[in-house]
């Protein structure tokens, strides 16, 4: 479902003497249906960069990034928007929402975006929030006021609301207690069983061992760091 071929990327800092910082070259990887692949490598090696290139919020200088049938590296904004709505989910470490919107609606939104009914979307949101132990009294409040762990779980609920065929996970178990961590890992297993292709960054080594089928060390693609 994901096929990354010979991608490269550099940043040009126009306001700092037009310094050019190459961050990736020769990036290669693939994730099949029902497979979970972990990105590894030292901090700064480019794990998040690669994830963002696949999601389309970093531009790719060269190479191909196929998600399903779409080459994200060359796709128009509209094509990427459609891809994100229907095919490609992303659970980031940070929750970014309109302040004031109720948690329940934040979680239900991806389902409503693909045209599911209000009631159906909310039912699924309730189910996920309950599963992730977000107390019901918080559902009508905006998650912007929640603790880090709670925000993280709302983010996960939102990412799993719609059964995306491809899922990017950025540290899904960070800052979670044992119970919630187990729930999240169960959700990931479920998605895998459904045939979802998952690419993730897991610093939590035990979790990585438990759910990932393979590891890809991005250090290989880091200019100047490759062995």
């Amino acid at each position, binding site marked *: 479902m994901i096929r990354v071929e010979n991608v490269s990327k550099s940043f040009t800092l126009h306001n700092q003497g037009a310094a050019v910082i190459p961050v990736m070259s020769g990036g290669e990887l693939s994730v099949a249906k029902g497979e979970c692949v972990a990105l590894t490598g030292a901090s700064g090696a480019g794990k998040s960069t690669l994830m963002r290139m696949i999601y389309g919020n*970093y531009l790719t200088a060269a190479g191909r990034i196929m998600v399903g049938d779409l080459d994200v590296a060359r796709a128009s904004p509209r094509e990427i928007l459609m891809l994100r709505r229907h095919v490609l989910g992303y659970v980031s470490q940070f929750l970014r929402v309109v302040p004031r919107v109720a948690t329940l609606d934040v979680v239900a939104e991806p389902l409503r975006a693909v045209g599911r009914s209000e009631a159906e979307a909310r039912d699924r949101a309730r189910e996920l929030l309950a599963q992730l132990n977000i107390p019901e009294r918080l559902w009508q409040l905006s998650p912007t006021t929640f603790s880090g762990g709670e925000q993280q779980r709302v983010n996960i609920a939102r990412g799993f609301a719609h059964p995306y065929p491809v899922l990017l996970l950025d540290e899904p178990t960070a800052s979670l207690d044992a119970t919630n961590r187990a729930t999240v890992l169960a959700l990931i297993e479920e998605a895998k069983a459904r045939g979802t292709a998952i690419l993730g960054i897991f610093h939590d080594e035990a979790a990585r061992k438990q759910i990932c089928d393979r590891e890809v060390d991005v250090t290989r693609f880091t200019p100047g760091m490759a062995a």
Partner: protein
Amino acid sequence: MTPLLQVEDIAKYYGTRIGCTDVSFDLYPGEVMGIVGESGSGKSTLLNTLAGHLTPDRGAVRFDTRADGLRDTVTMSEPERRMLSRTDWAFVHQHARDGLRMNVSAGGNVGERLMAVGARHYGKIRATASDWLGRVEINEDRIDDRPASFSGGMQQRLQIARNLVTGPRLVFMDEPTGGLDVSVQARLLDLLRNLVREMGLSAIIVTHDLAVVRLLADRLMVMKDGHVVESGLTDQVLDDPQHGYTQLLVSSVLQV
């Protein structure tokens, strides 16, 4: 799929000075596009040119009309263009008093567009106005009050109701959250987002507030000195800006 709006090589000059130039893009149904840039970058000139308030010196602004498909709104007759701006288009001004009739009640303000397209049944007009006040979270018992007695945020919401009552397909917004308190802004953003989704609206939003575009816009255009210096997916432009000016703009935002 036909784009709802097709902008081709638009240029507007003020004498020899550039208002905006070389602007082209397609906007598809349901898409929200943000235009950011500092004061004087040409973003408001562009918006007003697209909305037919200013006549461009060059270029075409084609709109997918219900009757005849894509039509160039620059060359269509003025009555047609004005009809469009009362039915399929809407324009939300930064200052609510520019977009509202301050000496007419809230209900009258919302009802005007209905009456302009031929509604002649008082009871139905009032019922629709009342329904729309509810949708923009204005208490229905304020229907006969004049907007002068409303807070800034309420005035702005009233302006939105007045614009959306005829079910337009394209909304132009000029700094819709400008001049409002932060908490009021959030409420307005939430409202706009829901309306955009429920009604399947397309929108072009001019703002200098990057947080607003991140939350509202699917796509982003960055303007400087009358030129589009960068455009793309909103989060791509904000997370991986390519042009020096955009990089400066993004790095200048204070993080909270």
